[in-house]
């Protein structure tokens, strides 16, 4: 494996070989991330490549003292995926705004699941609900952070979370965990 510092310096100088090495190195983790939000491979790759394009364009701003490069790239790709999702599905128009909805915070239904099961059950949810569910249960964001990222009200986020729990209960009952 090449030295990460060498790869980083090459990417700063827009060296294509270094960019390829970095891409291949991060690809499994970033693909898994994008697959949480999208079902189609085309959407997954589009979101992933958009995120990596931002990584390559802004890699000079990376500050090594504030974390690993992968963490930095992971955040950028996730944001790119959410942007892609927002542009594609227009989340804000499809959800019903419920400001005073009560959300029962329970344990994550995906806590003990394998990756394939997580992807399976997430695939049964609508796109916006899937995104909120992923951010809340899988990625561990708070409702406030999700609202900020998706530019939605917190009540809407809670509604999506309740919706996801309701749907997942039905799915869990119909299709037990494999």
């Amino acid at each position, binding site marked *: 494996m090449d030295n990460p510092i060498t790869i980083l310096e090459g990417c700063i100088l827009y060296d294509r070989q270094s960019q390829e090495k970095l*891409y291949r190195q*991060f690809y*499994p*983790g970033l693909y898994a991330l994008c697959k949480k939000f999208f079902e189609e491979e085309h959407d997954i790759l589009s979101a992933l490549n958009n995120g990596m*394009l931002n990584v390559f364009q802004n890699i000079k701003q990376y*500050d090594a003292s504030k974390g690993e490069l992968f963490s930095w790239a992971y*955040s950028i790709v996730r*944001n790119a995926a959410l942007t892609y999702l927002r542009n594609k599905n227009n989340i804000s128009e499809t959800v019903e705004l419920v400001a005073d909805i009560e959300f029962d915070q329970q344990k994550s239904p*995906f806590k003990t699941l394998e990756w394939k099961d997580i992807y399976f059950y997430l695939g049964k949810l609508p796109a916006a609900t899937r995104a909120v569910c992923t951010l809340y249960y899988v990625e561990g*964001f708070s409702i406030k952070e999700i609202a900020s990222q998706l530019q939605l009200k917190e009540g809407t986020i809670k509604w999506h979370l309740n919706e996801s729990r309701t749907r997942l209960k039905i799915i869990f009952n119909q299709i037990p965990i494999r």
Partner: protein
Amino acid sequence: MHDETLHTNPGLNSNFPIPDVPADDAWDKMNTLLDGTIPPTSVPPKNGGGNGMWWVYIFGLICLMGFVGWWFFAKEQHKNGSVAKNNSNQAGQVLPVNNDAGNQRKEMPVSGTDTAAFKNNTAPVTADSNMAATTSNATSNKYPVNTKNNKGAHLIEKITTKNITAQPTLLRAGNVAVLPSTSKPKVSKDTARNHVITAGVSHPSQQNNYNKIGSNRTLVANSKTYKRHNKTYFNILNNRQGGKNESSVADDKKVFLSDKATSVNKTTNGKDNRQKNATTIALKQRRLTDQRMASGKLPNDKNDNNNNSSLSIANRIKWKARQKIKITIHPPLPFDVSDSIAIAKAGKNNLQLTDNKVQDVVAAKQKNKKNAAKSSKDNLSKMITAGLQWNFNVPVNSGYYFTGATGKSQPWQLLLPSLWASKKAGIGRLMVSFTLLQQNLTGKKVLSSSTDTSYITISTSVIKTFGLGAGLQYNIAITPAFSVSAGFNYNTQSKALLVEDSVSVIQSVMATSSVNVANTPSNGPAYLKPSFITGKIEFAYTRAKFDVGINVQKPLTNLSSASNVNIKPVSAQVFFRWKIKRG
């Protein structure tokens, strides 16, 4: 397995599932996307790449041209100076007759034979310091007659003829050349104010025969002095034309060859004022003189080998006739040449100056020195061209073109005033400039960027910097109207116009953007250096008292104090230059 803290600390080595799409296919798409947005580049060298090398080449070329021109100019100056120095120090070499500022210098060869004879026979007239040293028996009380180097004082030594016997007259002048008799006496034609003094023979009664005609006077003082009366006579001939002077000298020779101890004084009219001189030289003194002359081996003297003591007076006179001296004295004279005659009259045996004259001469000398110093300052002042200049920054790479140092729109700062002065140096002109308000457009360059825990990236960018500027450049005129320059600028950065952007990393949108002005002493060290140096190339069009042109500057040093942030933007300025004082 998922982790609830995955978003804050995702592990690269986590057990991620195998992607459904192979990495090769994904990279192909990524590569296509990169080709459309980021062109592939090879890894450039760390020293900044080849993009900036043309600056170095152009700077080097122009500076080299300037130095070569300067070197040639200095060499020519040095060469001329060396010739003049040699001429003034070596007898028998080329001596300058006219020491007027190099270009007007006349050179006259002096044959070695004449010089040897001159030395061995204790030539009566010396004009060179080395020659004067050979006539050590002549006491030398020096009095300034003319200014040195045409302005300083020429010196006439007080002659004590008692020690010289047969050569009682000694004229010594530091900047006066000796014109041997074998050379035709020349009258300077380049100036109507030159005076030629030739040591010669004259009777006291003829001392008033010199005539002033205009300011062109020739003083012929054939060094013929007769011991009998122990007097020195000067025959001053007013001669406006060189030909007449030659004819008079030729006539003198004829008279001398007549083997009669007579003195001839001729005026420019060719009228002979021949008078028999009752002078008779004592035999002992004559023998002594003949012996000295014999040791000098007079040219064309057939008798000197046979019997030294039998040298005739005619031969002696003939030899002495060759010892004519041409002295060029440049105005302004501290006192008139007639004063010398008066002094000669008063001092019969000696050339003596009275106390009053000495005081006058000293005062005149001091006055001349003051005039020379003042003239030197005036000349320096005349050589300097100075004026004002206004610079218009060209918005090459800035979106905040009208934003001033206060953060508000200040269009007036686009007219940046500066002072400049130039002086001719070599083939071009050396120019210095001082800019009171230097505005450096940097473009939007990110100085620092950080992402906080809420995924808000705050980046600080510099747009402009402000400060003083000083420049040094060398101008070369490629045509009478166009000139090219190269040089360096030293610019300070006392203020900076900073833009702070807050961007949400998640949404990839700009949250806030603010423009701030920071004083570099407080905020700058973290971002900007207090000063930087730029290389400059300039093209100008000259018309009358005004120049208009454009200069391009490329920073040679980094504007940022952070080593990993490289800010060296190319900037351009259109300038308008006004020559208030022309040298």
